[in-house]
């Protein structure tokens, strides 16, 4: 006999595992894509010198790298929301808002230059 409490615990664990697998996939895609662009961009810079194509690859790689944790947090908001786990939906949404505030701050700094 499993008590309702045991069942709730094992349901929670199963949901957590699905969420972890999805977040892991987001991180993996971000890492592979950004490292690939940075490697090619760096090699081209060394081989051909600074140019438009290597510069674009390096910039894209860096932006993608910095956006990977943001994408992971956004994915967490969606995953917890879909499971109606409101506590964690709100918590991850706060983190996302903080990261967006960072992007806004970056744009403000950029304009000052």
């Amino acid at each position: 006999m499993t008590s309702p409490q045991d069942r709730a615990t094992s349901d929670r664990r199963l949901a957590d595992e699905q969420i972890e697998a999805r977040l892991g996939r987001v991180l993996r895609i971000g890492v592979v894509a950004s490292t690939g662009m940075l490697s090619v961009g760096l090699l081209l810079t060394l081989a051909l010198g600074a140019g438009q194509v290597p510069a674009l690859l390096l910039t894209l790689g860096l932006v993608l790298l910095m956006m990977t944790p943001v994408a992971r947090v956004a994915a967490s908001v969606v995953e917890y929301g879909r499971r109606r786990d409101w506590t964690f939906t709100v918590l991850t949404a706060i983190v996302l808002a903080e990261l967006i505030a960072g992007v806004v701050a970056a744009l403000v700094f950029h304009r000052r230059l």
Partner: protein
Amino acid sequence: MPVVSASVVAVVLFSGAVAGGLGSTLGIGGGIFLVPFLTIVMGWPIGVTAATSLATVIGTSSAVSAGRTGSHLINFRLGMVLEVATAAGSLLGGITAQYLEAHLLERIFSGVTLIVGLATLSRVNRRNVLVGDVDPGVLGGRYVEAESGGTVSYKIRRLPLALVASFVAGNVSSLLGIGGGVIKVPVLNAWCGVPLRAAAATSAFMIGVTAAAGAIIYYGNGQLVPALAAAAILGVQAGTAIGGRLGERASARSLKLLLAAVLFVVSALMCYRSLA
């Protein structure tokens, strides 16, 4: 701004690999080694150093965490709760930096690392694990320990302290360009009931968010040299892959001793710098 040349790229790649290797063996990230090297040896301005180091921290965090999903070492729920505090600290780091004197910051950093080092040393033989298959609660965790092959469970204690430590770690991370694991890992381990390996894995998961909040601001400020940042990121990634394997084989006790030693050295270096 540092000049891009093949030899500088090679040095940055290599130093990144060494810093990444050491950092991931200890579970605190490579920034703590990379920042002093780039500032003191390479003579880079502190803003460029911090921006570069933060970029490597993001890369390490994403790569290491992607590789660890499924092992249960990362405590996702705890990480997400603490991220609220760490991202706030990281955002405010930029503002705090403008009101506090650099020497004062260095002294605070030196003091904090000294206290955390002493705490780690005083609990070197204590283990945070619960025996048997007990329910660890919503924020606690459970994983299979590679060292012994047994299932390990733990409960979270003193959550407010963990939140404060995460806030401070986020703040320090933005200011100095390190991941902040050097503060979070020892605090989670010594006072909040998290076993060392789970603390390190959870911290590594969180620092991507911490560093992203800071790095985006530095990047907007034009303090990232793309080719050199790429070299540092790729070097640290390579070193991290090697160091992570060493860390899995070492015993928790020797990792704690090494961590305490690193904290004392960093504390002494920072103290020296603040007085110089």
